[in-house]
């Protein structure tokens, strides 16, 4: 057998002890983790925990495993929202297929699972919008997915908004750029697959009544086209409008979740022509900033939220001491005195249902809500306590992320 891993491969050592020579289907139950929120799959896919880290293992033809491994590695390097690949195991005995190893995307759930939940109906619109953002982002990067479905899209919360991730790059083709035909075909495939999976949930009695599979599927191309248009269109405006029109466009793109790489302005007969080149990577300005100040790794909108709290905390420190406080000092003190205590207070049985940064975000929201009601600021500690008793228990227990379950032993 041979293992190919991408550095940093510090996780790899523990994985080597697994029974790779056996078919995944025959692995001992004690090695495996059950993930109720996973999607359906043609291949055998299993989840294992090694030293508190969780991995997804997929048994798949070697050629496809290599293909998927190479592409996922590329995508990650480019900052695209995908699962992170660790490596592959090939040359297994008895001509067995290869195994692709990806890092479990913590705090994620498949779209399939989301739609089948009681909240599926209410958020269908938002869910599809984020799925379309993912598809547009991939298309901008010249990626033809070929299998966009509810099971192949993972979902995470980002400060109350949704973020979609690609899992399953088996059918992906990478091109320098996509032709309109390729994009449309990919959207057609997505419609068909999303529609089919919703029908499937309906047949299984798992779909909320107010979701109509056909209607949802039919709506996808429209959503896609309008976002694609919004992101790629060239605009012409009068030269005197230039300043505010450019700013307006950039802000709109940011709101949609896209960063701008380059702006091209050309003066023409009709006026100024604006072309915007959108970055394919997820926006990351706030993320990097928060990391620099606190060492925390979170998602973009979460980072924005947390940074605001760091800034407020810094202002409070400065006001209290009557002198300037360097931002890095403020960052470290905020981490130790504000952020960490909230998370340390999460009751044991509720841990792992939401990502720590998301918990903090929700506590801030809750604080705002309580303060509004009380007519004064109730403070973070009190808000946290109320949140842990009244709100967090409402998050389904099945959502507990596997690494936390594994950690409990």
């Amino acid at each position: 057998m041979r293992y190919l891993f991408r550095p940093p491969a510090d996780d790899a050592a523990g994985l080597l002890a697994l029974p790779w020579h056996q078919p995944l289907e025959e692995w001992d139950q004690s090695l495996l983790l059950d993930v109720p929120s996973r999607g359906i799959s043609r291949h055998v896919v299993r989840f294992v925990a090694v030293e508190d880290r969780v991995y997804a293992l997929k048994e798949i033809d070697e050629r496809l495993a290599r293909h998927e491994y190479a592409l996922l590695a590329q995508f990650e390097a480019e900052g695209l929202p995908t699962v992170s690949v660790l490596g592959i195991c090939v040359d297994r005995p008895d001509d067995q297929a290869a195994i692709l190893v990806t890092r479990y995307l913590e705090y994620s759930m498949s779209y399939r699972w989301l739609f089948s939940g009681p909240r599926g109906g209410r958020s269908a619109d938002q869910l599809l919008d984020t799925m379309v953002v993912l598809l547009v982002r991939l298309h901008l990067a010249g990626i033809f997915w070929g299998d966009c479905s509810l099971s192949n899209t993972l979902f995470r919360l980002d400060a109350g908004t949704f973020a979609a991730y690609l899992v399953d790059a088996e059918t992906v083709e990478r091109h320098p750029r996509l032709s309109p035909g390729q994009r449309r075909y990919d959207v057609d495939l997505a419609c068909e697959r999303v529609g089919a999976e919703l029908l499937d949930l309906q047949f299984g009695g798992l779909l909320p009544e107010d979701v109509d599979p056909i209607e949802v599927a039919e709506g996808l191309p429209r959503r896609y086209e309008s976002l694609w248009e919004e992101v790629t269109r060239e605009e012409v405006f009068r030269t005197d409008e230039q300043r505010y029109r450019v700013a307006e466009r950039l802000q709109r793109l940011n709101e949609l979740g896209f960063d701008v790489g380059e702006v091209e302005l050309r003066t023409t007969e009709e006026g100024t022509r604006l072309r915007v080149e959108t970055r394919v990577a997820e926006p990351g300005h706030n993320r990097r900033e928060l990391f620099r100040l606190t060492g925390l790794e979170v998602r973009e909108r979460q980072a924005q939220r947390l940074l605001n709290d760091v800034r407020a905390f810094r202002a409070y420190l400065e006001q209290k001491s009557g002198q300037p406080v360097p931002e890095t000092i403020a960052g470290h003190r905020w981490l130790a005195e504000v952020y960490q205590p909230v998370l340390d207070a999460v009751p044991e049985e509720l841990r792992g249902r939401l990502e720590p940064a998301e918990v903090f975000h929700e506590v801030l929201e809750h604080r705002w809500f309580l303060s509004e009601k009380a007519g004064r600021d109730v403070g973070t500690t009190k808000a946290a306590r109320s949140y842990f008793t009244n709100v967090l228990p409402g998050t389904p227990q099945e959502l507990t992320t596997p690494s936390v379950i594994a950690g409990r032993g």
Partner: protein
Amino acid sequence: MASIEMKNIVKQYGDGFPAVNDVSLDIADGEFMILVGPSGCGKSTLLRMIVGLEDITSGDMVIGGKRVNDLAPRDRNLSMVFQNYALYPHMTVFENIAFPLRLAKTPDDEVRRKVEEASDVLELKEHLERKPANLSGGQRQRVAMGRAIVRDAEAFLFDEPLSNLDAKLRGQMRTEISRLQRRLGITTVYVTHDQTEAMTLGDRVCVLRKGKIQQVASPRELYEQPVNLFVAGFIGSPPMNFLPATPEGNRLKTPFGDIELDEKRAAAVAGHDLLLVGIRPEYFEDATLVDEAKRPVGSTFRARVDVTEWLGDSQYAYIPYDAPDSIRAQLRDLSKELDSEELRTQAIVSIDATSRIREGREAEFWLDSRKVHVFDPETGDNLTRDAEAGAELTRLANEDRLEQMEDSHAGSRADEGQVRTGGATAVGS
């Protein structure tokens, strides 16, 4: 269903490289066309232009009499088979086949009729009410085909559909696809780089090289009357042997002795100095095992055998030969282009499984000189190709196809009223 006509199709990618270069090809309504060639020859690009996945740089793509160059994929109404073989666990096999129609809001009675027709052809009828979890690998693939069938597409398109399957399933599916295509009589374009698939599935095979069509013909014609060195070397496994040869009157002098040519072929090769003679492995035999009656149509020679390979029902002998440097270089280039690793200055010769020819010894061989072809090493042209005989082979294949389609239609009509009586319906099962 529809014919597909390509007129002077060119595809240039961004860097200006012509991946498909002036391809004109007519695929008849109901025909099974294979696109084949070594990696990078442009076969997938061509298929993608039919589907609408690549813009066409120039030329016309006409499907069912309509120019489709500017139509979106979905408006061309073609079906890429096996693109989606996901099975949905809560839906019955019936619904797993029906959902494309459901999504298109097709009325229930029409859905029922189409799914039943498709499941008939696919022999899935008894399974329609089952959940897919317990289907076999082959049955799963057939459900995927069912989805393609109920769409009533103009044509089926396959891009290396079997390459990810294990060998056993691949064999099964090959038969299945062929049977299905015959029964439905649906125009089919199938991309592969696999010899066996190319030679067993198609009515006609289009061989591509560097974006250009080399030859379009029935598998038999390609095999027996290749237009050039490239096609001759690409089709056939083990491949055709190419030996250096110099013409002398009615004879060709080769490392395996003199080969006599009939007058027509002798005239065709006259005036050349150095030639390549192409001999398929099965045109050879252990001389001691050849019928006296057959001997005179060929020639015999003695050679030392390097290796023999006994496969139970057949046997191969490997015979090294000398060739001038120019020919060696030429053969090396050819095998590189054909993605085959061997440098062919060693002939592969098929001998009867009972032959007692031994490795390392000299033995006497016979070769059937009626079927050899002679190529111009510079242009690669087959100088001895008999175009008429070739066309006749393809005409016969076409007749077979039309007849089989008749039969299968008659068969399915008969099915409606009475018990199946075999015939086309039993093919491959």
